[in-house]
């Protein structure tokens, strides 16, 4: 039985279909990253799941139980809001303590004055304070505990919001871009904390992010959403290496995957000196899109081999260099990701040769669906596959 099931969720705002028949099963202890372009409906989906918004159609099941009619407060869900949604009138520590107080203290004990007279509340409060401090320490905000949201920086607020969600053990974690305002180190650190917590507590988690590194590195499975539909749900490796849809391929991977228009004739695609044979090919001509990730494009600076191209822009990223090259033949831009030394001295306007790793080239049909294809041994292969080879060497 899956810990969380979504069945055919649909929702529209003022006539715009925002969620379109979304179904998803999350296993116990599974960590799912939900990615998709801005405005595709990720936050909306989380809100429906949490019971904060009503779907027009469809069902939400948690632990197998239908949640319709169950109030948000009773679903035992913890959520980090994209907008933080901190209580402006409470300090950081009070903000973080709220979900604990709500669960561990009785209604009487929570009352302002009478509460402090109730038996047991001191001990509980002390325990809560301990947990809050611990959580704050692990997210490095212990020095902010007495500040109100208005006195914190963006990243600090975000961490408080994260702490508020993580401090308790819900039946499901929903996190909506919880780290978007953090710098890289903090983000890696917080990511570690989230993964740790997930390991320890095994709470199923739905994690919205626009950071692919996050999605790919943290998740058991990645769900790619577009225009209100789930396009593919699979392990990070499959999503990256074996996307089922051209949109998925395009969306995942930084820099973006290269797409080249080509044509299949009787199941064979020829592009430059590349050759791909489609399985179950239709007869006759058929337009296809070839796609290859920038790291599988390699450079021949002497332009002896590969596709002739001209460098358009060089982007230095520290550990690597991104080259934007325009193919002389068809005018398409191809991106190559190379090691800094390989690109040393290259400037816009330089002529280069590009080699595509044949085994890494995918073919997609016009409707975006993936076409199973086999790389054929041929001229291009040996030359194009250098990147793979080098890597193995």
């Amino acid at each position, binding site marked *: 039985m899956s810990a969380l099931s979504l069945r055919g969720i649909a929702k529209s705002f003022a006539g715009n279909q925002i969620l379109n028949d979304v179904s998803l099963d999350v296993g116990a202890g599974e960590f799912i990253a939900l990615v998709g372009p801005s405005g595709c409906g990720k936050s909306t989906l989380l809100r429906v799941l*949490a019971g904060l918004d009503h779907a027009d159609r469809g069902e939400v099941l948690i632990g197998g139980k239908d949640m319709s009619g169950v109030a948000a407060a009773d679903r035992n869900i913890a959520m980090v809001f994209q*907008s933080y949604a901190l209580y*402006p*009138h409470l300090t950081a520590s009070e903000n973080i303590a*709220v979900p604990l107080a*709500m669960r561990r203290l009785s209604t009487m004990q929570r009352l302002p004055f009478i509460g402090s007279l109730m038996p047991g509340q001191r001990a509980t409060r002390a325990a809560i304070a301990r947990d809050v401090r611990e959580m704050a320490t692990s997210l490095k905000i212990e020095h902010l505990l007495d500040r109100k949201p208005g006195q914190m920086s963006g990243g600090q607020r975000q961490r408080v919001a994260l702490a*508020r969600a993580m401090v308790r053990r819900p039946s499901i974690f929903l996190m909506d871009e919880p780290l978007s305002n953090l710098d890289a180190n903090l983000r890696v650190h917080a990511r570690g904390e989230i993964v740790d917590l997930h390991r320890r507590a095994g709470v199923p988690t739905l994690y919205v992010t626009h950071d692919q590194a996050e999605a790919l590195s943290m998740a058991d499975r990645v769900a790619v959403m577009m225009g209100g539909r789930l396009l593919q749900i699979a392990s990070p490796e499959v999503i990256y290496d074996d996307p089922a849809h051209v949109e998925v391929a395009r969306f995942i991977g930084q820099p973006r995957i290269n797409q080249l228009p080509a044509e299949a004739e009787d199941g064979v695609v020829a592009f430059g000196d590349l050759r791909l044979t489609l399985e179950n090919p239709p007869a006759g001509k058929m337009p296809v899109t070839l796609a290859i990730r920038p790291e599988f494009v390699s450079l021949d600076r002497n332009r002896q081999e590969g596709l002739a191209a001209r460098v358009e822009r060089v982007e230095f990223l520290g550990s690597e260099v991104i080259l934007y090259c325009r193919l002389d033949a068809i005018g398409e831009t191809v991106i190559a990701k190379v090691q800094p030394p390989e690109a040393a001295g290259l400037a816009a306007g330089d002529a280069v040769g590009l080699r595509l790793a044949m085994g890494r080239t995918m073919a997609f049909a016009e409707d975006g669906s993936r076409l199973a294809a086999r790389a054929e041994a041929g001229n291009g292969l040996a030359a194009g596959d250098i990147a793979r080879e080098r890597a193995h060497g």
Partner: protein
Amino acid sequence: MTSTFSLSRIIRLTLLSLGAIIFLSPYVFMISAAGKAQSDIFTSSLSLIPAHLTYAENFAKALSRVPMARLLWNGVVVCGLIFFFQVLVAIPCAYAMAKLRFGAARAMMVLVMLGLLVPIHATALPLYVAFDRASLLNGYAALVAPFTISVFAIFMFLQFFRAMPDDLIHAARLDGMSELGIVARVIVPNAWPAVTAFAIFSVVAHWNDLYWPLVVISKQDYATPPLGLMYFRAAEAGDDYGALMAATLMITLPLVAAFLLAQKRFVEGITMTGLKG
């Protein structure tokens, strides 16, 4: 921006001060009259400073003619009870109307608007008869009960709650708060300026209300402060102005003190910086 006197600041201060002088001028005469002997009040020449200081006499008269302590105490009890119930009833109602979806919301709105328009003068008679039947006249119950529902409060809170971001409420729901809990712990603290403003209005209105107490109270024991002022009025022959002003001062001062305390709340206005958007 800076604390120096820029031109715009000078204009601002001048405007404010001028306005304040105009607004306060009646009080100047009131305070002056409270210290004047009866024969000094109406004279052909304007003099603010009493020729003979008779504050002591006037205040003594005000205190001796009416049981001032009793009146003030009644005022406190009545206003306190009224405010307590009004807030208790109005805030959850306004919250539901502002943030929850339910069929009757529109109908409620109609009711509220209607309630806003009905003056107590219009319904006093039926209410009086009802209270008489229930043998509730002459008591705190009669003074308080009709005002436990304040459509003004509902309407006012409604406007403020609507401006409260939904995400805040969502967060509270997920944190496990009941709807009442949300009202008490999230909505009210963040609508503090509105609640304070309402507190001020409610207390002021009922502290000064003369009409309804006059209808339901015929025993001194439950008289509220304005009822006391009547003892200085004699329509036929002209009022005893000095004592009237002294008494007015005495029953207004607690309100001013309360306002001075409450208005700090406005300074510490809460802004929605816990959110992004």
